[in-house]
């Protein structure tokens, strides 16, 4: 009895523009992933399936399920509406059930009529027999075939959407609980039997009373007592009904209190992690700015006045230049010497002596007279004046040019050799900043995670907390009041029962016969049977809850394996009003987390998987499990665990997920997406992997989704 969906196709359906052939997804056993970001046809795909199976779709504007027929215009491709006057929209599912193959298509024909559209819906079903497609025409047969895909009683659990999960497995609401119990054990008939039994015991009461009145019609005392008895029995009935109402109100108040307790308990934690996140955010910004600055400064460091990186490796040039300068000085001196042969002998007189000789007209070197303007006197004068009219030995004098340069670059001889290590240190500094930034980012993510686990969300604020405190006080008062009301009501019933016993005794004392005894016995028998049926129902109910508890906890543990915070365990607590509260506790039965949505979702998913798996014993679930995956706020770890468990529970699952998507990466997958694709490619996870991409980035009315098959 296994159903496997082979393909799903769309025709001009939301973003899926074009014919069925253009928009087909081929699926297999195992996990079939359709990876798409928001607005990329993820939820629209799911809507297609809802339409085909249930004639409903989820309206994202109204945020609830609506009938498909009321939504046809919204379901039509914007591009088709804009560009065509006559087109069809549709969803087609091709599936096999054991050896039979079927193709089911729901189609709506759109025809432009003046300014509006006329629509016409059709349902086409083909059965493939011996390779021939035979149309199925009988309406009842068509309905049966659609039910083969997923049977009605399992529809809610096999067709899973994030938003609707909460109501589905809210065991603390009567609706949620009864549908869950119903899905698990089909005890609707037992419940009806209890109802019948209650009615029967009321009938016997009346019968017995009437008989008593009949027999004792003349006895005023007895008729009076019977009257009183009827009155009291009536009051007891209505009071019991009232107690049921009180119990419901009490349960709700308790649930509210527990919820608020967790919220308030975690307010401090939230504050703390909010603060930690902010501080880390500031720190990260500071570090990023610092790194940024450092990176931007590199260019100016290349040209720094004191230690310019641009000159790295060029230090020998300075000493080379210096040598050249010295060589030049030497060469100039040599040249000068060659050009000026006049040399003063050793022991030549100094300037003052020469001046004296000029004055005294005596040459002190050779001791002979040197009259003014004589040749010897001229010679002495020339020697004395030699510094003043020293002849230039070279035509140009570029010494200051070279020395100027030497001065400018001289200091570099010390700094240039150090540049290599300076650069190295600078690199290291930037690397260290990078590491530090990464570390802080991780810490910030951890703080974010803790914040969410403490019930944090963007809307949490001081104001909300104040409101919560007042709601909490109100809940406590309500609990007190309802408990008091119940106590009083139960006391009344007890008193009335006592009185009834008295009346019974009195009546028996006054009048008894075997005939009336029979009726009395009948009455008591039926009352006891009512009690017996009621208790049997309770026993069965408790057994179901116990099994659900065990099974759900098994799934929960597998799903939360490896998570940063320990997942704790699920605890199922029956309430006074007959509902069941499922909370997450730690090992010591203490409240584990506040309202971390992530954990709530895991709890819900565990219960769903427990329900599904308990329908099938140890086999796999034989129908497709289709989920618009409620994976937001889960870590990668949970998603990994889910993909590990799912193939064991479901023969085929089709999962729409956005948490593997990264629009910036070249294959649109993030790290986790790539890891999962790899596991699929090497056979660790059986199934297929599709990615949706938007083709035109025009305005949203013309969005067109295409798919890319990464693993077929």
């Amino acid at each position: 009895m296994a159903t496997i969906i082979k393909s799903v196709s769309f025709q001009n359906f939301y973003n899926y523009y074009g014919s069925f052939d253009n928009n087909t997804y081929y699926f297999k056993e195992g996990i079939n992933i359709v990876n798409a970001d928001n607005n990329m046809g993820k939820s629209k795909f799911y809507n297609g399936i809802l339409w085909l199976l249930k004639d409903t779709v989820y309206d994202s504007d109204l945020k609830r399920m609506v009938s498909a027929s009321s939504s046809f215009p919204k379901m039509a491709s914007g591009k088709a509406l804009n560009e065509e006057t006559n087109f069809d929209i549709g969803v087609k599912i091709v599936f096999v059930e054991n050896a039979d193959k079927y193709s089911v298509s729901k189609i709506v024909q759109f025809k432009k009529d003046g300014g509006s559209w006329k629509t016409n819906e059709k349902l086409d079903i083909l059965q493939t027999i011996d390779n021939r497609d035979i149309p199925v025409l009988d309406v009842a047969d068509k309905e049966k075939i659609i039910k083969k895909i997923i049977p009605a009683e399992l529809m809610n659990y096999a067709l899973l959407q994030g938003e609707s999960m909460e109501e589905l497995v809210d065991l603390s609401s009567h609706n949620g609980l009864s549908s869950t119990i119903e899905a698990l054990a089909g005890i609707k008939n037992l419940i009806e039997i209890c109802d019948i039994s209650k009615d029967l015991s009321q009938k016997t009461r009346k019968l017995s009373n009437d008989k008593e009145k009949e027999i004792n019609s003349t006895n005023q005392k007895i008729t009076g007592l019977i009257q009183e008895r009827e009155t009291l029995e009536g009051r007891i009935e209505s009071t019991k009904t009232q107690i049921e109402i009180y119990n419901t109100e009490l349960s709700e108040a308790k649930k509210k209190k527990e919820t608020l307790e967790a919220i308030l308990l975690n307010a401090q934690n939230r504050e703390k992690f909010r603060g930690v996140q902010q501080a880390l955010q500031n720190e990260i910004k500071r570090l990023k700015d610092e790194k940024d600055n450092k990176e931007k400064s590199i260019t100016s460091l290349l040209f720094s006045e004191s230690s310019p990186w641009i000159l790295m490796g060029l230090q020998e040039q300075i000493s080379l230049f210096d040598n050249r300068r010295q060589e030049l000085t030497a060469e100039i001196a040599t040249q000068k010497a060659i050009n000026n042969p006049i040399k003063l002998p050793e022991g030549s007189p100094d300037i003052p002596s020469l001046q004296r000789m000029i004055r005294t007209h005596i040459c002190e070197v050779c001791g002979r007279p040197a009259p003014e303007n004589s040749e010897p006197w001229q010679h002495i004068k020339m020697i004395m004046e030699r510094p003043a009219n020293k002849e230039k030995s070279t035509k140009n004098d570029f010494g200051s040019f070279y020395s100027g340069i030497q001065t400018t670059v001289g200091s570099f001889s010390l700094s240039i050799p150090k540049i290599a290590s300076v650069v190295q240190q600078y690199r290291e500094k930037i690397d260290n900043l990078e590491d530090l930034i990464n570390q802080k980012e991780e810490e910030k993510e951890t703080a974010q995670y803790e914040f969410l686990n403490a019930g944090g969300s963007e809307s949490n604020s001081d104001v909300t907390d104040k409101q919560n405190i007042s709601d909490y006080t109100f809940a406590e008062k309500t609990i007190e009041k309802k408990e008091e009301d119940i106590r009083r009501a139960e006391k009344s019933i007890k008193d009335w029962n006592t009185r009834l016993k008295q009346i019974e005794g009195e009546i028996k004392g006054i009048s008894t016969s075997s005939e009336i005894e029979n009726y009395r016995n009948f009455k008591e028998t039926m009352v006891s049977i009512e009690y017996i049926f009621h208790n049997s129902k309770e026993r069965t109910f408790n057994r179901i809850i116990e099994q659900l508890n065990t099974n759900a906890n098994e799934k929960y543990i597998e799903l939360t394996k490896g998570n940063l915070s320990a997942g704790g365990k699920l605890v199922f607590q029956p309430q006074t009003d007959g509902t069941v509260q499922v909370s997450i506790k730690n090992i010591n039965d203490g409240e584990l987390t506040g309202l971390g949505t992530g954990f709530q979702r895991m709890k819900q998913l565990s219960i769903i998987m427990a329900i599904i798996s308990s329908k099938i014993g140890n086999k796999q679930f034989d129908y497709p499990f289709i989920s618009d995956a409620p994976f937001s706020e889960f870590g990668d770890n949970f998603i990994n665990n889910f993909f590990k468990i799912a193939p064991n529970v479901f023969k085929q699952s089709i999962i729409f997920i956005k948490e593997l998507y990264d629009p910036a990466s070249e294959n649109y997958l993030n790290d986790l997406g790539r890891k999962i694709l790899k596991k699929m490619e090497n056979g660790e996870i059986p199934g297929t992997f599709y990615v949706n991409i938007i083709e035109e980035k025009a305005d949203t009315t013309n969005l067109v989704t295409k798919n890319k098959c990464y693993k077929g």
Partner: protein
Amino acid sequence: MDGSQLRDLIGQKRPRYKEQYRALIDSISKKGDTSGKGDFSSFGAYYQTYMFAFIVGYKLGKQNFIQSNEKTNDFFVFSQWSPTSIRDYIVMLLLNKSEDFGFKWIELENASTETIDTFVTEFIRQMEGYANAGFEYLQNKWDNENMKFRNPFVFVNLLEEFDV
């Protein structure tokens, strides 16, 4: 002629670059940025780019001279280049090689004004040769290894390649 005159002669020149490298220079320079601090993968002012290209060509040991038929653009006047210490370093590097392009310092001491003019012209030509070889090298990197320019250390890395 004395040292300051020679310095002025050189200083009033405007070294040129080949027009074909204009786009590259625009890409890696931030024109008019006087702070000297460009974005991390661009130079502050154009002459920083020129000096960098010169050093690259010098380290390569290659020159790419401007031919008479090639289109060129002038750079800012050499005396205004900054920082002056690096500018002077470049002068020093060329002076150290002056014999290779035909001029001994001692000869310059005795040279006529015309000869000095020739020297200065050749000096600048040599500078342009290295710079344009550097631009050619950078153009190649830009065209074929463009990812390198996304790294803040791109220009440091390019220089370090020569010192290995």
